[in-house]
């Protein structure tokens, strides 16, 4: 727990997970059409919907379009998502008409490994044919990464997850930076923001490297570097991420309370 004083919030304690999720939620706008990854992205997207972006369209790869769950789904296909959706389509239609069709403005992903150009690995640790750890694989991510208008990533920082060189290119970000992405024929913008438990990172417009633009309250530059496997570039003017508001914390905590109650065995 990081203890802070805050004029705007009645809550003066929050976890780094809460800060990360709330900072991520603030990236989203009401007119976004967001393809939601499970876990931290799903929490961030639903906090946005329940606070400052009430009209945001959330899409899950299970086929649910315009969904508005009261609890966080454990999987990308919980019944809650369908119950509250505008409509539910088949999975082939989801990937052909909706993602590939170019209707998604934001793809919101997590990652097991990421590098400083936003390339993501969720496939394997070690060699593909002789793996140390077999991870779940890409799922929807390879095409979300190339077909959604832009990509936000949210994940906890660690030396294991933020690495100089990922073991496998599951989902392409900016390659080695600059115009690598366009050279491959990819027309979308790619990763533009990384929201961790310590900081907010934005892609540099030219080099495409992630650069720290905000430190979360109570976090130092050293904290960020200690938990990142590459040499971190900080922006010229690094500011402190605004504190979670009372509303944001209430929305997030209430969401988790309902979720936990629902997932408990009866």
């Amino acid at each position, binding site marked *: 727990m990081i203890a802070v004083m805050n004029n705007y919030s009645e809550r003066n304690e929050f976890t780094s997970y809460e800060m990360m999720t709330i900072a991520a939620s603030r990236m989203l706008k009401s007119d976004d059409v967001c393809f939601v990854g*499970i*876990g931290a992205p799903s929490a961030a997207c639903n906090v946005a919907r329940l606070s400052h972006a009430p009209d945001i369209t959330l899409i899950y*790869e*299970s*086929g*649910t379009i315009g969904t508005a769950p009261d609890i966080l*789904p*454990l*999987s*990308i*296909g*919980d*019944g809650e*998502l*369908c*119950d509250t959706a505008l409509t*539910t*389509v*088949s*999975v*082939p239609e*989801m*990937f*052909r008409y909706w*993602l*590939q069709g170019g209707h998604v403005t934001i793809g919101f992903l997590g990652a097991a490994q990421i590098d400083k150009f936003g390339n993501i690995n969720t*496939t394997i640790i070690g060699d*593909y*044919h002789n*793996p*140390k*750890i*077999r*991870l*779940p*694989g*890409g*799922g*929807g*991510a*390879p*095409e979300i*990464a*190339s*077909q959604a208008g832009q990509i936000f990533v949210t994940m906890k920082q660690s030396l294991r997850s933020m690495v100089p060189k990922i073991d*496998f*290119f*599951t*989902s*392409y970000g900016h*390659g080695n930076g600059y115009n690598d*992405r366009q050279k*491959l*024929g*990819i027309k979308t913008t790619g990763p533009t923001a990384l929201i961790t438990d310590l900081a907010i990172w934005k892609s540099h417009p030219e080099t495409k490297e992630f650069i720290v633009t905000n430190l979360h309250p109570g976090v130092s530059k050293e904290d960020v570097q200690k938990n990142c496997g590459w040499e971190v570039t900080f922006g010229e003017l690094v500011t402190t991420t605004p504190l979670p508001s009372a509303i944001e914390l209430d929305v997030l905590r209430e969401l988790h309370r309902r979720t936990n109650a*629902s*997932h*408990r*065995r*009866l």
Partner: protein
Amino acid sequence: MILFWQGLVKLAKFVSLQDAVLDVMTDGLCVALEGFTHLIPHASAHEIIRKGFKNLTLVRMTPDIIYDQMIGMGCASKLIFSYAGNPGVGLLRRLRDAVENQWPVPLEIEEHSHAAMANAYEAGAASMPCALFKGYLGAELRQVNPNIKMIFCPFTGEELAVVPSIRPDVSFIHAQKADRKGNVLIEGIIGVQKEAVLSAAKSVVTVEEIIEDFETHPNAVILPHWTIDYIAEVPGAAHPSYAQGYYARDNAAYKEWDTISANRELYLKWMAEHVMQQTPDVFAERVRFTNPQSK
């Protein structure tokens, strides 16, 4: 006499799940048990495990608990998939043990993205030999999976991905309802279940109930009786997955699987008790006390 090609017309027969599995399965087949989180055919997977079929090629976008169970019991020699996790919980530990340690038998994998698998099922349902889509740009799976090729649009020159279509020997799905003629209704998250049935040489559908007539929407997702080989009424057959309108997802069971599957002995003991010594009838019991899922 002229031999008429009769098309892929079937005659849906109502049988027990045990009889359906015995009739359609042999060792070495390519089998899909589909369900995208919703309507996962757990009862069918358990019946296949009990009958001891081996050397199967298992196809599924999201191999989760049931494929972890089948792989751990040594049913499979190959897996074609795009996301092998316990959704929202973590990794599939029996799958990892097979891939990393060849336990209990080696497992060959053919790995795709969801977009590729979804397109491949669509193409299979349309009797296509391959599926064409925009995909795999910059993705390293292209380097490790020889079944991912690139071709160029003959009109624009754009580079496009192409993968073989999926056409299983047998597909198993679970659905909410069948009518007395054998037509099957699927509602809610429909995934690739329709495609799994239409792309397969043979198909087995378990349903929550058999009713007189569907009362539904003109554009409802219905598989006509002449696309299905066998229908078995097995209430609760999707548990711990769910059936929209019948029972909710048992998320606690998904979380518990992470512990059960972490240890070979614990896993084998659990399988003996909860699968090998049971019949399809136990599924009705398992959902009796869950919250009904709102329609």
